[in-house]
């Protein structure tokens, strides 16, 4: 079966670590851009969420995406549900990118990337903005 539109598999041979390509949707601020996503599946997947972050040279400039690739998205952390799949996460991320109105980093980006640990699941996220 095929991955959803705009998503392609770069490397999924390791059952614990996947790399996917994500293309910016047409008619959005990210049209024509290509991003790389990394999925890290723990032993309790799907009961617990995988660790998802943007990697590579091109990290999308978005108010909820930090320059170290960490994504501020509730379904990846405390709103995770075991019925979610890699495909559903990719769709959520694409919709998050598509609804963006101005390309800018989160206001606390500089402070966050200095202190954040490599695994975004260790960050205590505060989800306050439902618009984007």
């Amino acid at each position: 079966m095929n991955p959803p539109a705009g998503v392609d598999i770069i490397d999924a041979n390791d059952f614990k670590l996947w790399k996917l390509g994500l293309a910016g949707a047409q008619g959005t601020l990210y049209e024509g851009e290509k991003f790389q996503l990394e999925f890290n599946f723990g032993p309790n997947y799907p009961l617990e969420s995988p660790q998802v972050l943007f990697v590579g040279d091109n990290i999308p400039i978005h108010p909820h995406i930090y320059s170290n690739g960490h994504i501020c998205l509730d379904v990846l952390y405390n709103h995770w549900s075991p019925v979610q799949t890699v495909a559903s996460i990719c769709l959520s991320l694409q919709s998050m990118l598509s609804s963006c109105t101005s390309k800018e980093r989160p206001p606390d980006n500089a402070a966050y990337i200095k202190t954040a640990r490599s695994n975004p699941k260790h960050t205590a996220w505060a989800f306050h903005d439902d618009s984007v």
Partner: protein
Amino acid sequence: MASDSIKDSTSNHDRKDRDLGEEPLYDPRSLQYLEPTQASLQCSVCCEYFTEPVSAPCGHTFCRSCIEQALEVRSGCPLCRTTIDPSSLYEVIALSRICDELLVYCPHKALGCNHTCQRIQIGQHLKDDCIYIGTLCRVEECRKKLLKKDLSEHMESCPYKRVDCLMCNTKVQKSQLSEHHKTCPAESVTCPHCETTRTRLRHMEHIKECPRQIIPCSLSEFGCPWTGPRLELEATHIPQCPYEAIRGFLGISKTRMEALEQENKQLRGMFHDIRPQVQQLRDQVSELAESVQLMTQQEQQQAANGGGNGAYGGAIGMYGYMDNMYPHQGSQHQPMLSRNDSYDMVLAGDGIGENENEMRIMNRNNSLGAESMVSNGGGVAVDAHELLISENERIKSELETLTAGLASLELKQNMAIMTESMRMQEEVQSLRAVCHGLRMQMHYLLLEQQNRHHPPPGPPPPGSPAGGNNKSGGSGGAGGPGGSVPGGGRPLSTSGPLRPRFADGLGRQETKL
């Protein structure tokens, strides 16, 4: 859906890992279905066909194990997030039946089993019919892992299987059967000497008396070189055997030899026990010799110091005019010196004696080493043992004399030190007296001079010159009364050298030299 395929591969992997463990015949979630995947019959957590499907009050259905695990992590429906009480889950019987009736492949399809059946029957198939299921060889010692289909073939050739020996009717492992035939007591054997045939069991007895077996002479242990058939031994050889004639003697010497060997062994053991003791004693002796040498050196040093003191005493003695004043002092010097000298002589003699002793000890050590070597090499353990014991005794007595010598030396040294110190004390005393006398004389002379330059009534010059000359602090006090009574001093001055003598007697306690 892509998501399903993605998820499938991860979950399958985990399950295969689990499947390697023995007992449960199969994992229901790793079954392969004949029908293409129908999303409506799949659990949205594990993305497989429902296994024991249960519904929550919100209407969503999951596998029982999936929803129970999910609720442990987060207590909401995974799909709509409505709170679910685990006790409110109820089984969906119709759905369960539909899923159980789905056709599946045997889990051992990869090994070659082409069986397909309804999911609910797969357990029965695996238990009874599937010949591709893993099993173990039934023989205890073998326990080889193999597929059920290969078991009967394996049992034919299992090297641990027991088979009957046709000759002796005992059970023998198949792999050891040929080995068994070489020793089987029922196997028939031909005697190599007389070429008669009987079972091995009886051959064993026969071989002891086979008349044609080639045997050595019964006295071969004493050197008879004869060998021949048993038949001929008694008949022809024994009457001629030269060893037969001295058989009695040989027997006696053999028993004696054995007794001697036994004794030798015993003695050797004793010798081994004693060796470390001897070594220990030797060490002790050498230690003692060292300490004695050290003591001797100290003595000699002491003696040398004593000689120096004597010289010093001699130098003092050169103040000849003092002897006039204190005749008893001078007379004391001489005998003391001589005593010291004689003592040195004694010490030197002792030193030589010690050296000789050491030499003797060393010689003995050498000879001892030689003896032990001889006893080791030649095995004359008896002599060596006695020698060792006597050596031991000698070393012990040596030790005792050395200890006694040490004690006496110590005593002598103490005495020498004591006399020396007493002598020194007396010398110091005499020197002190001499010094005081000198000072008094000086004082007297100064007074005399002053009286000559400044006739009687003039106040005496401040005692500063006298004080400056006399460096001792106590002299000021002693000189004080002399200076403070110039008037009264004059008549006394006529008494001449007597006055300082009196003052000397008084000021002695105050004088510090």
